[in-house]
């Protein structure tokens, strides 16, 4: 590596402190989540209550994981994309597309269940590949490249279903979003599997290292032999598949496709989850665990709104404030200004 890093054997004290915090990138998101949960428990002591009903674990915490599954899945893909220095605005539309395809396939009893699940995922992967190729081969900025699919993807989904919301009765597919395994919703296992796969990919193969170097400095990574184009394309495919999976969960969950609403505004929730989780938008530094916590934070916020009886359309306001606060706290300039403001009165 040609980059100059501080000598790990002789760190300066300030760097030590920084390294300490860098070692716990999860600290702030976790503090935020804990604070929000605490707030809820104070208002509704039953918020964290768990009980067993019908042999299933039942309660708001389970709901948070179950309902948050879509957000977590999206956040996994989005983390990788953002780590590569990109962004994927099309995830919501890809969800709708995969969901619409799955519903249509699920209606056909002659198709095996594998096809009902794999074909939509393949479609989502192709959508991701399309994004990746636009970014890497044609050199379009990621925001715009994925904007194309964001605007037209939902239209394609509507054309697939002919503007209808096809309902289906396919027990195997319905299990995906509604079933229980060992007392827990199946979606939780799905998320765990996706996380494990992504984690293994990142830690056991060189992909993680590649990603960090790609996002940080494309030229340097190219010099060090990383095929940046390949990595970047792959990242969009992963994001597409994650979105497809989230779309399947959403569709299975309500037993019908809903091309207009499935994944509506979810791209923003996913980006927010990743940002709140501590991944740098400039690429390079990323944390999957942080994104998961971020996604759970967003879901808890949604749940809090339901509890407080706040009309859903108002829910974006606190989300916006939290994200801006997180970003401002991360900005060195803001911290300097705040410190300046605090110090001045003391000096007088």
């Amino acid at each position, binding site marked *: 590596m040609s980059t100059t890093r501080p000598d790990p054997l002789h760190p300066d004290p300030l760097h030590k402190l920084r390294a300490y915090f860098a070692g716990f990138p999860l600290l702030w998101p976790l503090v935020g989540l804990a604070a929000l949960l605490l707030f809820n428990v104070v208002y509704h002591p039953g918020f964290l209550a768990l009980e067993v009903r019908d042999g299933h674990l039942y309660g708001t915490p389970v709901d948070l994981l179950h309902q948050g599954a879509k957000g977590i899945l999206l956040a996994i893909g989005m983390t990788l994309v953002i780590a590569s220095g990109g962004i994927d605005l099309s995830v919501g539309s890809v969800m709708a597309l995969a969901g619409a395809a799955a519903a249509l396939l699920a209606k056909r009893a002659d198709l095996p269940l594998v096809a009902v699940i794999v074909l939509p995922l393949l479609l989502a992967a192709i959508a991701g590949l399309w994004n990746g190729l636009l970014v890497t081969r044609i050199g379009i900025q990621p925001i715009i490249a994925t904007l194309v699919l964001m605007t037209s993807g939902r239209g394609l989904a509507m054309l697939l279903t002919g503007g209808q919301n096809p309902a289906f009765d396919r027990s195997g597919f319905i299990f995906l979003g509604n079933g229980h395994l060992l007392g827990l919703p199946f979606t939780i296992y799905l998320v765990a599997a996706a996380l494990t796969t992504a984690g293994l990919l990142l830690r056991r193969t060189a992909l993680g290292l590649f990603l960090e170097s790609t996002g940080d400095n494309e030229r340097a990574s190219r010099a060090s032999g990383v095929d940046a184009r390949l990595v970047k394309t792959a990242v969009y495919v992963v994001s597409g598949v994650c979105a497809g999976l989230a779309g399947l969960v959403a569709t299975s969950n309500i037993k019908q496709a809903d091309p207009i609403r499935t994944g509506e505004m979810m791209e923003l929730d996913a980006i927010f989850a990743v940002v709140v989780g501590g991944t740098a938008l400039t690429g390079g530094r990323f944390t999957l665990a942080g994104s998961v916590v971020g996604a759970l934070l967003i879901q808890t916020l949604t749940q809090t709104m339901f509890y407080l009886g706040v009309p859903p359309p108002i829910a974006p306001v606190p989300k916006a404030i939290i994200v*801006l606060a997180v970003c*401002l706290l991360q900005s060195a300039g803001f911290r300097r200004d705040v410190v300046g403001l605090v110090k001045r009165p003391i000096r007088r």
Partner: protein
Amino acid sequence: MSRLSFAATAVVLVLLFGTASWLYPGFLSARVIANLFGDNAALGIAAIGMTFVILSGGIDLSVGAVLAFTSTLVALLVTRHAVPPLLAIALGLAIGAAFGAVMGAMIHRYELPPFLVTLAGMFFARGMAFVLSLESLGISHPFYRSAATFGIPLSAKATLNAPALIFLVLFAAASCLLHATRFGRDVYAVGGHEPSARLLGVAVGKTKIAVYALSGTCSALAGVVATLRMGSGNPAQGTGFELDAIACVVIGGTLLSGGVGSLAGTLNGVLIFGTIQIALVFDGRLNSWWARIVVGALLLLFIVFQKLLARAASRRA
């Protein structure tokens, strides 16, 4: 190069309009053209602001939400609090400008990515619109009743209505601002290459903040125009509007990396968008989702076209 992409946009517009006129009786009429401006006035006004932002190298995702917020605010003030309409409109515009300036300041001073700040701005403004009112508010006020009927007749059947006139006047004013003032040159300079702009003595910070304030004002004005068009303020309107506006700007030949583009191109982009929509209404058989798909395809086509032009230009250099 920007000329070439402008020409391409113009060709697409003429081809689209020509095809639609060929296919649908009554399409090529003064009324349809007047409608094109009137129905897309809000989009056009927001796209004008967006052009400045994109030229400066940024992006503004909050336009649709600011539109909804302003229209709801104006409706609320006029109907529930008996504020004179013009005062309510002025207040709405001022809030839009301030909102944009705050976003611009965050982007500049704290070096946050524009899309993130404006995304948060979009969530915030949309939510606040619903805080003002959960439902669409009708405005019944003599000013609005006369505004609804006001217009300049073009022919027996076609009238340029108030929204269309506001759009055209703003377009002229914004063109002057962009192409004939110091500020306009600064916007191009900042978007072209920020460090060199700084070296040339351009006040980069001020320019950036001004650009977002301008876009905020334009979005607010789009909200005002929406109240004129419907005689109501609806907090739910304008979802996805930001993407339409960006699409219009890009189809109009403005480079997303900033520094290259024109307002005339944006006007073409808006008219292309509007033509597709009206043509679908005239046809009356196709699924309206085709509009989304066609716009997406055009967007892609123009980006690729720009890329090819840029590549050819760099090879020549």
